[in-house]
């Protein structure tokens, strides 16, 4: 996906989620749309291009969070790099495998976010955040399934060679 397309799409998805969660109630768990974007970038973009795009995607999430700390920017780049490593083993070509790939990325992303938040504030939310994680991962997987055709449409990149273990 082109850089500006990634930024525009992320902004649109985050804004939509922000409004949708407001209407559905604050208690509804969040959907990590940014993780789906980063997961797709780790499949298609080159390391530097993807790292820059992931940085911007994470920055946007930080910005929309109301209290930017840099945590989500860091986690987006880290998730991208781990995703890049994973793609040397796994070739993601179908929507179903992309959903599993995104859910795994979101699980790692979510655990790290909870861990780092706890590390700095030692708050009592550790347990409640952890218990909300499975639903968050499941919803992110669902979002990935819906977003995959859209990502592919925006992605004008060439087809990749036959590599990986899982298709």
């Amino acid at each position, binding site marked *: 996906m082109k850089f500006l397309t990634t930024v525009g799409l992320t*902004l*649109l998805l*985050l*804004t*939509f*989620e*922000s*409004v*949708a*969660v*407001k*209407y559905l*109630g*604050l*208690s509804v*768990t*969040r*959907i*990590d*749309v*940014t993780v789906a974007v980063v997961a797709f970038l780790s499949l298609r973009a080159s*390391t*530097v291009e993807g*790292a*820059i795009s*992931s*940085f911007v995607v*994470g*920055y*946007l*999430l*930080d*910005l*929309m*969070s*109301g*209290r*930017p*700390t*840099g*945590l989500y*920017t*860091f986690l987006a*780049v*880290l998730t991208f*790099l781990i995703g890049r490593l994973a793609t040397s083993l796994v070739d993601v070509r179908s929507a179903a495998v992309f959903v599993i790939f995104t859910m795994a990325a979101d699980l790692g992303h*979510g655990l790290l*976010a*909870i861990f*780092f*938040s706890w590390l*700095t*504030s030692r*708050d*009592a*939310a550790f347990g*409640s*955040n952890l218990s*909300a994680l499975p639903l*968050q991962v499941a919803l992110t997987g669902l979002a990935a399934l819906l977003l995959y055709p859209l990502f592919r449409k925006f992605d004008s990149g060439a087809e990749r060679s036959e590599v990986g273990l899982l298709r």
Partner: protein
Amino acid sequence: MLRLLKRNRDLIVVSVLLLYPLATFLARRPAAWEPNILDRAVLALTAPVQRAFIWTFDGARSLWKGYAALRGVRAENLGLREENQRLRSDTNQLAEVRAENDRLRRLLDYAQTSPDPQLAARVLGVNPAATILSLRIDRGESDGLRRGMPVATADGVVGIVQRVTGSFADVVLITDPNSKIAVKVQRSRVRATATGKGENRALHLENALRTEDVQEGDVVVTSGTDGVFPPGLLVGRITSLQRHNYGMVQSADILPAVDMTKLEEVLVIRTRAAPAHVSNPQARRAAETAP
């Protein structure tokens, strides 16, 4: 040297992209939360999109809910609800101010003070990050809002303005784990600290001495000693008290008076001297050492 840099350019770029935000996060400088020019530009871009989404959602909801003829009634109803909310908030505050004034008059013959002006704002959206509880309202710098202003509804305290840009602001809720406010038990005037638990329906009462008179069902209001919230705003009700036979303090859970999941309109209290955010060391220390 230059060749070495050139050869490892990709590695350097990726390392910077990874380590810079990590360093920012670990440094946790509150000043970094102030929006810079780039932040403002991006936020300014999202605001119209958010409004467009809200407009679409509202339009769909209006169509769903009623006929065109009912639209006038709904608009009037919205206006009345807003007015009602403001009046109920005033009444709540007045009761506390009156009680305070009675005590002061009896003791020191103080003159009656007037409450701070309030500004109604609409909730635009909720932040998409799971570990931070905050929301965005449709009032900003252009309406005179500043960082650190308290936010409430007729039912009680909501949070504090964390970041302000042109036409909107982000409000961190009192249920956010980083939130600490100075409170007192309305019945016995015991001072304590209410901290967020990261859940939408729970706060934690801390720093109340074990010997102090606190009971389940007691109403908790802001004490005003943190320099952020004016005194007398309703915070919630004590639900479960934990008092052991040892230790210096007792603790309890507080059920917030405001249901944070159903917020649509809020009131920003435009305090004359806008205090620093609660993370400001002085205000935070005041909140933490309330008793």
